[in-house]
């Protein structure tokens, strides 16, 4: 049941106005006797952690039929106990500015910029990954130092650098380190230094 703002407010309005209002209403019935269903009462609660600073506040994303309806603090998290700072509280907007309205600034397509071009052009994701793999191989093969002048195996690839990131998950960081080290990359860094 996709609730847009009007219907929603009508719902809250109904619960707010309580009994039918007559010209000379005598006594307003208690408003909140029955639980008014609203946007997140029947939504699935998905626990997650805030992606901004490193306090690690718990968050709950309310999802119904795959649609993100609300994002709030997780009261069970002993660190944040349901609170979120402004950055955490706004994190739903990474995906949706409002329910059903995707954030227009989000980039949802792979893009490619030719040397010297003044604008992006769209590119197929798989094709982009193939081209990237070729460039990584080409750069590695070109600048690879297998052994140093004393004959010691050093397996160093100084043509390729990797930056990033303190904003990605542990599992992703591990894969970055594992792959980059196996490519012989020594220029490997992330935010922690800046």
């Amino acid at each position, binding site marked *: 049941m996709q609730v847009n703002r009007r219907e929603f*407010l009508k719902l*809250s309005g109904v619960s707010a106005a309580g009994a039918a209002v007559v010209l000379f209403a005598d006594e*307003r019935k*208690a408003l*909140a*006797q029955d639980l008014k269903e609203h946007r997140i009462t029947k939504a699935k609660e998905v626990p997650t952690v805030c992606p901004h600073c490193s306090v690690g506040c718990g968050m709950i994303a309310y999802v119904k039929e795959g649609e993100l309806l609300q994002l709030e603090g997780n009261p069970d998290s002993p660190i944040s106990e*349901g609170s979120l700072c*402004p950055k955490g*509280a*706004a994190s739903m907007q990474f995906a949706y500015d409002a329910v059903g309205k995707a954030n227009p600034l989000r980039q949802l397509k792979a893009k490619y910029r030719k040397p010297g071009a003044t604008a992006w052009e769209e590119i197929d994701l798989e094709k982009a990954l193939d081209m990237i793999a070729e460039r990584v191989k080409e750069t590695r093969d070109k600048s690879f130092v297998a052994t140093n002048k004393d004959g010691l195996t050093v397996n160093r690839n100084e043509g390729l650098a990797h930056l990033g990131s303190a904003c990605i998950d542990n599992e992703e960081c591990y894969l970055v380190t594992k792959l980059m080290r196996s490519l012989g990359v020594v220029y490997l860094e992330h935010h922690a230094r800046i």
Partner: protein
Amino acid sequence: MGRTATLAAWRPDPGNPKQQVAMLVDTTECIGCKACEVACKQWNQNEYRINQELGTYQSHPSLDAQTWTLIKFIEREDEDGVNQWLMQKHNCMHCSEAGCVTACPTDALHYGDYGVVTLDQEKCIGCAYCEPACPFDAIHVDKSAFRQTAQKAGKCTLCFDRISNAMQPACVSTCPTDCIKYGDRGELLKWAYARVEQLKAMGYANANVYGDKELGGLHELYVLLEKPEVYGLPVNPTLSKRLTFWKYGLQPVGKAILGAALFGMVINWFAARRTFKGGHGPGEEAEAPASLHD
């Protein structure tokens, strides 16, 4: 009252609409992080309005139809010159004698349950009589909305839909320092006065509670570090004299006089019917055929 997120969230008694619910902001622990501003917009699905003024941390110059709560930043020095950076969470105070409810012609704004001043945006016709009537400048009509029918008033609803579902208001549950408390108004007042004593003991002589008596008792209470005027809050505010005169003075008098005039005309009609039989006045000449032709 404090952090009730982990314990079962406090809930107003559904059977007793007269129970007074309130929010209390302990401004001495507010760090001005604006999480409440964001959480309020997030829950109510309001649109973002980028209109920060120059030279301040404050996000908006004032509340507006989409911005229902706002942290006011006041940079000053206290009496002995020590830096002070006061932060006050400003939004609708849910007054017991509300200017907006007094001015609203269509009963869109009225005293809802638990002392909450509820606004039903369906019923609002966007006339904005409520805007100047509010002593706290807390309600505004959305003038920027394109279609006239979308121009509605907007204000804090004390998250009425949430509290009636045993949830905390969005700003209360998100506040990082738990300085926005929510619960039974009486108990919050007790806590507030105890906190003021504690602050006075710590050396904050001007600490005071705001909202206990103002306008018949607000449902947005404050523990302030300094006097209300330092925060720009009106000291024992009253509804604008002109507003009350317009509604309770002028209107009944006007109706009375109009009624009397109409009544007078009816009397005149009976009398005049006899005096001017056949529609002829006493001073009228006899029927003289003033012929055109001669």
